[in-house]
């Protein structure tokens, strides 16, 4: 079995408040999808469960789909639905 990959997670708004930090490292199995990532994030941080089905994930300024594969060293931005304007 391959070693897990390491990613950096950036959190914003309500998610940041729930988790209590805006940036942290996170491990994932290789070939994890974005959906896998969200599931594991909420498992590791059950205080974020309220957002689980609505969390948005972006990489390099673009939103990811649930099926997109996460790569080693990715920086993923993770946040609740937006409410600007």
């Amino acid at each position, binding site marked *: 079995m391959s070693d897990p990959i390491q990613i950096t997670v950036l959190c*914003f*708004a309500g998610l940041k408040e729930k988790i209590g930090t805006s940036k942290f490292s996170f491990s994932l199995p290789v070939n994890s999808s974005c959906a896998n990532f969200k599931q594991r994030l909420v498992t590791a941080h059950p205080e974020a469960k309220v957002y689980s089905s609505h969390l948005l994930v972006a990489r390099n*300024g673009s939103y990811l789909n649930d099926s997109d594969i996460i790569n080693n060293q990715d920086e993923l931005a993770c*946040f609740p*639905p*937006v*409410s*600007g304007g």
Partner: protein
Amino acid sequence: MPSNTNSSPENGANAIQLSITEQPIDYNALTESVRSNLCGAVVLFLGTVREVTGDKKTSSLEYEAYEEMALIELRRLIETAMQKWPVKKVSITHRVGYLDLGEIAIGIAISTPHRKEGFEAAQYLMSQIKETVPIWKKENWTDGSTDWVHPEK
């Protein structure tokens, strides 16, 4: 670059101006930045802090942005709007931090040859911004409670 960018108002390079700021929004500058002799219409929209929502009263708002991505996403939305309508210039500013009642959270100014397309494009941009641009609003209610706002869907 010694030249004043305002001196070439028809310059395509100035067609899009974006900012995210903690300072009060100068909507006069925003409006002026999109005016053009090629256009017969300017539409300015300001989103302001409303005191009353249902039976609750706001004491202040707080906006947080993922600024780097917000600017990317705003530009993407504007480029899409420019493909749909003959938009000449767009300037958008979103404020972050604490806002008092009545203050301006977002200002969007757009110029088009005719008015119909200006209204359409401005409405499109506003509704898309509220869907995809990573900025969040927190309500500080007069009863002391706070809420991160979630879009009604």
